[in-house]
């Protein structure tokens, strides 16, 4: 199901939490919305998931407008979307299986069907036979798996993930993300992932929108955004990621004024050495590594370029001409 947002606005007093956001989230994709805390992502997801009404603007699921529904229609529409949360929000008064059964119970589904479907869903998220487990006995990752099963119980066409992996350790995050991706394919879901972690976007999303101060500042394919980030906000997110990447090798802690990103075909060419000889530039490589974004390999090189400003400038210009994205670190920034 395609989701379209038209000029959405939501204010809290004088704060423009969501300020004129228009966005199309294509059907059958994993769509990331990334932003720092306070950027307006929580408000945006509440607007898109019909938990809150916008002050202005429209939300469409395919061609159906959903931001102005009556109470009954709203409840009915909500039964066709799934949502998971950072804090899981499972019912502690119910065991794992009963949690998964809840959305089916409230739709008054047949008891035998609920039982059968619960077992199916437990298997789908890799928790066969754990239906009777009290919630407190489950690990964080298992809790999120139960939450995913619960969200999918009524065969929704949209799954909202509100910081779904932020409370999990990196390894569990990866397993939950791959589960979401797998389920997305299996059920042809439109998955909307709200996050502040670039790792999540890198590992799971097809497209991403970058949210800052209530605005979408950048939107596109994840591989495009990673190789040529346009705004400072995006670069900031990417730089935090480059530093934590395990596949990066760093020779020295200081230096590294330029970050070079090579995509696809460019990674096969001897660009550095050819530019070095033509521009008379000297590259001092501080760190290097490979990022894999949605199956596309991307080389990352952190380097200083010398011997002087002029040749560095020339080298940067030539790099860009050859399709290498170059990001310059501000001097105070280091």
């Amino acid at each position: 199901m395609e989701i379209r947002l038209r000029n959405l606005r939501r204010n809290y007093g004088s704060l423009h939490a969501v300020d004129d956001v228009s966005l199309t989230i294509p059907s059958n994709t994993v769509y990331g919305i990334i932003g720092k805390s306070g950027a307006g992502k929580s408000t945006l997801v509440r607007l898109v998931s019909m938990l809150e009404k916008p002050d202005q603007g429209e939300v469409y699921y395919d061609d159906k407008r959903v931001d102005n529904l009556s109470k009954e229609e709203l409840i009915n529409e909500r039964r066709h979307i799934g949502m998971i949360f950072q804090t899981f929000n499972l019912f502690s008064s119910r065991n794992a299986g009963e949690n998964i059964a809840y959305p089916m119970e409230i739709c008054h589904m047949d008891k035998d069907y609920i039982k059968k479907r619960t077992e199916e869903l437990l298997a789908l998220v890799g928790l066969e036979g754990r239906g009777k487990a009290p919630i407190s006995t489950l690990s964080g990752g298992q809790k999120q798996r139960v939450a995913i099963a619960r969200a999918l119980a009524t065969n929704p066409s949209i799954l909202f993930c509100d910081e779904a992996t932020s409370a999990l350790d990196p390894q569990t995050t990866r397993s939950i993300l791959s589960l979401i991706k797998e389920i997305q394919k299996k059920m042809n879901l439109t998955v909307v992932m709200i996050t502040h972690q670039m790792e999540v976007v890198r590992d799971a999303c097809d497209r991403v929108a970058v949210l800052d101060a209530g605005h979408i500042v950048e939107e596109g394919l994840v591989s495009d955004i990673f190789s040529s980030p346009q705004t400072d906000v995006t670069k900031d997110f990417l730089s935090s990621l480059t530093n934590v990447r395990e596949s990066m090798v760093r020779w020295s802690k200081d230096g590294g004024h330029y970050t070079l990103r090579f995509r696809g075909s460019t990674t096969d060419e001897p660009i550095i050495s050819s530019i070095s000889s033509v521009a008379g530039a000297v590259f001092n490589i501080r760190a290097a590594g490979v990022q894999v974004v949605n199956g596309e390999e991307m080389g990352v090189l952190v380097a200083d370029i010398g011997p002087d400003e002029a040749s560095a400038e020339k080298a940067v210009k030539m790099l860009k001409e050859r399709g290498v994205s170059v990001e310059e670190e501000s001097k105070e920034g280091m």
Partner: protein
Amino acid sequence: MEALQSLLDARMWSLVGTSTWQTVVMVFLSTIFSMILGLPIGVLLHVTSSEEQGGIIPRPVFYSILSRIVNILRSFPFIILMIVLMPLSRLIIGTSIGTMATVIPLSIAAAPFVARVIESSLKEVDPGVVQAAKAMGSTNWQIIYKVLLPEAMPSLASGVTLTIINLIGYSAMAGAIGGGGLGDLAIRYGYQRFSPAYMFVAVVVIIIMVELIQFIGDRITARLIAKR
């Protein structure tokens, strides 16, 4: 010596037995009726409270009126409430004297207390869980009986325990208008007839009842928590 003698008095024990039974009946019935009255009011208070307080249908004006009424009823001294409610007892039970007649004022006196206990238990429910239930398309009614009440169950159980113990105290006071029970026994025999043994035994039985209820209540609460 005299006290010891009357302690061994068989007549006293039969009186204590009757009074204990009257107290049990009073407390049991008024617990049930105060729950029936107080539970809906408590739920109503919680769901109409502000969004920050966890209200799912915020109605600020309604909430503040209801809250005010509950406060006024709670601040009534019980003994006065009983006298005020005597005509009501006469209307419903047919008499304003006796064990059954005191159940009416007891229930009404405890209902606002129960309402507050329920309200504060429901307020403790994780708002995230309620949000999730809402996002899944629960109706308000489903949120109340499938999420709020079950999620608050351990806390509700200790609230009920508290209510029963309070009612034991109130029921002792009900003796003052001829309601019978252990309080009545202590006042009529222990105080007015100068038989401290009666007073002593009545108080001990009340203490044992309170301890027993607290013990059972704590066990039930612990059980409910352990099952989660």
